[in-house]
């Protein structure tokens, strides 16, 4: 739905999405418990920039821009985009 088997860089994943790591961007991520197959929540991601993710145990990991760009993930779930609601004469409608 969101990406092919190679995945997308983690800093392209939307905020608050759950992702599965396909390929960690550096050996250091493995030492931080982020390996192929690990599931993490992307807290904040900036395109081409650093990313904050939350491990399954709750710890928050900061990925620098280079590591984030080289870390490929597949998105498991992403938050629904906010729908704009317009005020009509008779109350709120989607």
């Amino acid at each position, binding site marked *: 739905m969101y990406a092919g088997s190679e995945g997308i860089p983690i800093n392209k994943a939307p*905020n608050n999405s759950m992702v599965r790591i396909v390929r960690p*961007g*550096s*050996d*250091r*991520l*493995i*030492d*931080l*418990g982020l*390996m*192929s197959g690990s599931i993490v929540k992307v*807290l*904040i991601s*900036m*395109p*081409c*920039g*650093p990313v*904050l993710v*939350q*491990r399954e*145990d*709750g*710890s*928050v*990991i*900061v*990925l*620098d*821009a*280079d*590591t984030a760009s080289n870390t490929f993930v597949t998105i498991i779930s992403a938050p629904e985009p906010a729908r704009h609601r317009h005020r009509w004469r008779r109350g709120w409608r989607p």
Partner: protein
Amino acid sequence: MRNDVIKVLIAGVPNCGKSTIFSELSGVTINTANYPGTTVSINKVEYSIDGIKVSIIDLPGTYSLRAGMVDEAVAAREILRGGDYDGIVVVGSALDPEQTLYLLIQVMELGKPVILVLNMMDLASRSGFRYDIEGLSKALGIPVLPTIAVRGSGLDVLKNMIIKIRDVGQGNVRVVNYDKLEKYIEDLANALGVSRGGFAIETLSDNPVTRELMGNLLNNDYVRQIIENARKEVGDVSSYVAAMRWNAVRSLINKFVSKGRKPLISKYDELFLNPKYGPIISILLLFALAETIFLALEPLVDLLSMFLDSLPIDSIVASYVTNELIKSLIVDGIWSGIATLIDFIPYVFGGCPPNSVHRGFWVDCEDIISNRKVAKTHWYTLERLIYLIAGSGCNVPAITATKAMPSARDRVLTALMIPYIPCTARFVIISLIAAAVMPQLMGLVVVLPYAVALIGVIIISSFSKVRLRFIGRSVPYSYTLPPLILPLHKAFIKKVWHYTYEFLSRAGTLIVIFVVIMWFLSISGPSGVIGPKALGSPALLKQTWLGVIGNAMAPLLSPIGIPWQFSAALVYGYIFKEVVLSTLALLYGVEEGGLIYAIKSFISLPSAIALIVFTTFYSPCIATLITERQVVGLRLTVVNTILQFLIALGLAYVTYYIALMITLR
């Protein structure tokens, strides 16, 4: 016969309160020295309990023995090389048991006696963590000690455990089952002649530190064959080993740790990490902190200066010493050096809190600042904002504070950037020149140095994008976000005192020596020793070595209309920027109050603007240079100082001709 001094290493994951524990274990004095061949500081203390001597070395924090950064490599090397220490105390955060156990397993596998300290137990309890300490201790086969370092809780027990560390034993080294890799680990350990299976595991994982320690032994055909076979069996050995270790960690956590539901991200984290408001709040907070510190310090610095000026050193020395040269050496050389050093103490002490707070607090602010798209172009400039803002007060504490940065490369780059920021002392000179030649544009002119300083900072920050051997390679800068804690406790005060003490002991001697050398250069010349009378006579001052150097610099600045008196006075700025104005007054034969009129008479508007630009950049004072040397090394300090001088000269010429064109119109 065993050494009667118990030697212990303290290792741990970053931000777990390791330094606080070390600080609490130690007395008042902590010896800090650079690790051989690096600019990484290692703290060491020695004390005795009941007549038993203990020597403790505090290693830099690391997540694993496969280190990425220079600091981590120092810790990994010390642990892996299995020196003559008796055991290792592994300090971990009770808030992050996974990362703690991951490091602990690697240390335990080396077979040395290990004690596990789970610090921040109070925060962990509040966050809903429950530990089965006894069960964990039995499973690991080592003592596990819960502590709250900031309150000193559990540290007496730790002290007693350290004394008995030789009796601890090596613990359960087979806590991880490497399955298919086990036979290769055994074969390799035998082939390398090491009893430590952990060393063989790290070698199989291609750990760069073990590779370095093994040297030519890795070229042995049999050893290479084992490594090759292991690779064939499991593929990527490094990932396989890490996966097995993480499995063991999770198994231990499931058995002995229960976690609450309280989220690890606090409301403050959410505030600072907010993509919309976080950066603005962070920048305002950083700026407010730096400004508050330096505003609060101003009266203290003034008071200290007044006190030093009021001391009748002249008359005290005169009552004991009659020889004019020796008297001048003591008063103008040694005492002047000591007074210079004392003047810096408030700045260093005041600059230390951000240093100590950094890892626990500012990390959030820095992350969010660096998250912005605008930071992509000059990422290092924005990320290091706190240090650059601090540098505008005084470069010395700002450079000292960079020691808190985990990445050696970032530390070096930031320490190289800071001298480009004009400190308050340089700013006083700039303000006086501006007030003399263009009082109506004073507001605009005082902004000029900061605008110009940005050019220097951007030049240095651009180094981060190219691969420069002398700065070091780019390393991944990923880490676990530490808990947001305001460190208002006794250990924090002790840490601030330690930073100040470290500055005094390491930089102080060099500063005093340099001031004495400058004194000698200002009372002697090519014709020999002129004597202290040269310090009060413009004509004699011109004949001294400093006068000669100042005159040598004059041809560089005279084409842009800057008189030789300024060149000579700026040379004195290498000691302390405050003496530039008094030297200038001496050279023009006026009181300091009349300096404005002297400058107005002898310098044109374009030259004054060029002089402001030159003063902004040309060089920091000796204390800054010595502190810079501690962080980046001698070679880079020399390179950066020459670069600063050349940029200052180039920009001064450019500014002069632009100003000339504008004023001619």
